[in-house]
């Protein structure tokens, strides 16, 4: 079983972001990047499939982005991925163009399963998995909470607006990981050190045969402030009075 896990690097969610003065983008010189948290859940599930279900599974992680991305991509090797591939581009790709790049990688790698995060927590688009599945004509299961291989495919539980849904899905497929799928492991120090010395395959976006065609452009970015002045109250009675005055109670 070959599993492809696309990953993205995102600004660490624990830091504050600021827009540039002209609103054209983010103040990025001091930004610290981490692998997208949902992508690590996807990596963890791929490792779990290898440990739990099919021992000789091959896990390939792929990143699409700048040369620097190598650093975060290595974290997936430290966790236990077999190989990592960096599709290099200086362009800031929108979800469509990322999906096109991943489609080419799928053609090259021929995985049985693409396992990825449900959304990247920087732009929160929640599009690439669905785009990729549509492009490939593969079945999709988004927001998955459990995964098990069964005769003829995979049994999946997925989060919906009203609770858990169960599916049986044919493979190959694109599935996207939600929060409850698992808790990603931490790589140990020796694993991290070892991953530093491992090679990362690189291919330029153009060499994959992708011509970038922008679909979604950011024309302005603002950082709103929506703080309120909090009236501190002393008792339940005072609170209920205040809510009655606001006519919300």
């Amino acid at each position: 079983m070959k599993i492809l896990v696309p990953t993205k690097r995102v600004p660490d969610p624990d830091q504050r972001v600021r827009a540039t003065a002209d609103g054209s983008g983010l103040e990025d010189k001091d930004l610290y990047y981490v692998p997208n948290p949902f992508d690590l859940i996807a990596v963890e599930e791929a490792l779990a499939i290898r440990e739990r279900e099919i021992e000789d599974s091959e896990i390939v992680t792929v990143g699409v982005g700048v040369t620097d991305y190598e650093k975060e991509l290595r974290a997936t090797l430290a966790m236990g991925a077999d190989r990592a591939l960096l599709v290099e581009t200086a362009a800031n790709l929108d979800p469509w163009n990322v999906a096109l790049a991943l489609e080419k990688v799928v053609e090259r790698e021929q995985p049985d399963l693409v396992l990825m995060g449900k959304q990247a927590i920087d732009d929160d688009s929640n599009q690439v998995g669905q785009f990729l599945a549509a492009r490939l004509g593969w079945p999709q299961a988004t927001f998955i909470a459990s995964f098990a291989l069964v005769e003829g495919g995979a049994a999946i539980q997925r989060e919906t607006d009203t609770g858990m849904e169960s599916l049986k899905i044919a493979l190959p497929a694109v599935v996207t990981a939600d929060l409850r799928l698992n808790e990603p492991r931490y790589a140990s120090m020796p694993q991290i050190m070892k991953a530093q010395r491992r090679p990362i395959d690189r291919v330029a976006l153009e060499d994959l045969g992708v011509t970038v065609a922008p679909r979604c452009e950011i024309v302005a970015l603002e950082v709103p402030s929506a703080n309120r002045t909090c009236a501190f109250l002393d008792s339940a009675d005072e609170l209920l009075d205040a809510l009655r005055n606001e006519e919300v109670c």
Partner: protein
Amino acid sequence: MKVLVHFEHDGGAIKRGSLSALRFARDVAEQTGGAVTGLVLGSDAGDAASDAARYVPVLVADDTALKPAIAGPHARVIADAVTSGGFDVVVGAATSAGKDVLGRVGGLLGGFMASDVVGHEVADGELLFRRPMFAGSAIATVRLCGGPQVVTVRDASYEPSDAAAEPGAITPLAVDTGSLPRDVEVTGTPPSQGGRPDVTEAQVVVSGGRAWKSSEDFETHVGALADLFGGAAGSSRALVDAGITPNELQVGQTGKIVAPQLYLALGISGAVQHLAGMRNSKVIVAINEDRDAPIFQVSNYGIVGDVYEVVPLLIEKLKAADA
């Protein structure tokens, strides 16, 4: 612009989030001189179609292959309806269901997609969308470089649309059943929900955070208070992570986005990822034992105290007031 609205329904009634999508569609049609059509998919979808027709003319794809809803076949039918009807925009609610199926529609229609839209304007005949990024820390204005365009809107940002004076026509849409993918089978659906409304549909949302030690405590405090307000119970991710609350209660960047009349945050610290899901609520109340908790910065009213003491008092007073 010709706008198609993807209506989610429960077999009968159109869901509220779709009526927010309809609001967006009507605005855009009005601003650009266009028209709105609804689209209902399902099997035995007559009731849903009639409900949808109270608002706009509807196309109905009624076929046993379309129930239960699965992204693959549904996306195929929606994308074909957009192409054959010459629609410029297709819009739906930014729910989990909407993101699942319309994301795939976006993939079939060339990727001109804006998700989680919270506002829009028309400039030089072109649509510009406002959408949050970085857990709502930034609001981006984006343009799509072509079409047809696929849009999901947040119901918290668009008031549900009202019924029209005259019902619209219902037109069946032929479905080429043989061409639909059959690679996914639904083997179990979520149990139908109990009495409480969904967090995205309630006027009052009472949410609990890590302060709550167990599902029982959550239920007898947060749940009980939600019931007294006739509202929904929600939670921070900390409780979902701890297995104390189910996933569909999670409010925030990676959960549900709400903007009720009243939001009570009980023992929630106010991480940006949580604020992303509730900061546009009309009145926000926080109860937290830590006076410096960031949740107070976005709240209108606050009580510094132990939720295990304050909440039972609130419940008692509300019960007394009701009696």
